[in-house]
């Protein structure tokens, strides 16, 4: 199984082969992503009003999947960086760089929709509880990662430095989560009750899962497209004879 994955990734390490595969996948992935998204939004709109929160509960169907994706995207960046740095897969750097702004955007969406949800529900736009604070720190990790890519001129050097940052940051994310949890219980009691997804009524659970799938497919489509764009951009620059690609 592992050998098959190795062979497959080695086969597609060739950017030309990757571009061919990406070209084939492009339309289907986008089509699937958008249709599942439409389905999810339709299901979410049909959900009955929550007896406590009324219609604002519908923000959950954007907020929760965005939060899921913000963490998933960072894990993706971590694995892509390890693949690039340790296994020297050339497309690892491309994949990590492509995913970063998308992950940052999902994190931002999670934060903003959370604030929009929090204002009617808790009476405040923001509170420094464990979950919000650790997601905010995650957002800063994304920003730092993107900033490092942009600050270093040489592509190879930027790629390696960013990969190291991604790995260090990945180790740090659970530490931040754990320490902010500890800080929260130390300094302020949790005023928010988290619902555990499995305990969610099917009327709410199924649209949420569909939206989660939709966001995941959207992530895949966006990363694939951005990877294609990156390969094309570098090819164009090389053809022009640019010094820094």
């Amino acid at each position: 199984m592992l050998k098959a994955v190795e062979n497959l990734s080695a086969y597609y390490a060739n950017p030309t082969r990757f571009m061919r595969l990406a070209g084939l996948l492009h339309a289907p992935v986008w089509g699937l992503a958008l249709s599942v998204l439409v389905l999810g939004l339709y299901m979410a709109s049909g959900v009955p009003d929550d007896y406590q929160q009324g219609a604002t509960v519908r923000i959950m169907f954007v907020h929760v999947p965005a939060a899921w994706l913000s963490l998933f995207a960072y894990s993706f960046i971590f694995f892509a960086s390890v693949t690039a740095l340790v296994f020297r897969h050339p497309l690892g750097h491309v994949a990590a760089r492509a995913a970063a702004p998308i992950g940052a955007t999902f994190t931002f969406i999670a934060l903003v929709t959370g604030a929009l949800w929090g204002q009617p529900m808790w009476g405040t736009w923001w509170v420094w509880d464990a979950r919000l604070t650790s997601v905010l720190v995650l957002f800063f990790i994304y920003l730092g990662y993107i900033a490092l890519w942009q600050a270093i001129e040489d592509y190879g050097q930027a790629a390696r430095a960013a990969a190291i940052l991604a790995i260090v940051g990945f180790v740090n994310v659970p530490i931040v989560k754990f320490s902010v949890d500890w800080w929260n219980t130390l300094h302020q009691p949790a005023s928010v009750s988290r619902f555990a997804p499995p305990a969610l009524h099917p009327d709410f659970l199924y649209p949420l899962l569909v939206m989660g799938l939709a966001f995941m497919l959207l992530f895949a489509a966006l990363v694939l497209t951005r990877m294609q764009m990156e390969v094309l951009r570098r090819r164009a620059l090389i053809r022009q004879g640019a010094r820094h690609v």
Partner: protein
Amino acid sequence: MRIFLALMFQQVRLGWRGGQTVLAIAFLFIAVTLLPFGIGPELRLLKELAPGLVWVVMLLTLMATLDRLFQADLEDGALDQLFLLPLALELVVLAKATGHFVVVVLPLLLAVPLAGILLNIEPVALPSLMAALALGAPSLVLLGAIGAALSVTVRRATMLTGLLVMPLYVPVLIFGIAASTPSAGGDGAVNAAGLGVLALFGLAALLLAPVAIAAALRAGLR
């Protein structure tokens, strides 16, 4: 070992001659002076906030001094020489970080009581604050060095380094503040559990950070 010590003392000498010690202390007091203008000079408020304010100001000062760690060497070519030493790069960066600690962080720690007085810190809280800062400082220097090494080839990278280092500093800050609070009893006894966590961070940083720093330097100079 000789090379390690030589590197460390060289970092100290360069830092001292370059005015890094005085500049860092000056920055600390600039920040401490600005605070009462911002939050008001009410002594009761300052007393409550003092340990937290000192921690944050320390973090910002450290972030500001980081780019002198590797960039000065890069600029005059000394960084390439560091790669050629018969000492492992991880130990080389550890020596530089230790030197930075001695020339910049130790003086800052010595300046903390005065900064605390300016912020009307509770005298009973001062030993805990000092202990927490002293135990947290090694991990702050090492984590900061990771950021400095990642941005070593970027000119004027102070802001970038600060952004890279901020998520790494958050856990240390959280546990540092917790450790700065004297344990219940109010007799000034230190918060042993909190200090233990900071010491743990320090040890983990000591073992793991040099690997990341060396990897970042290699990535920057290949």
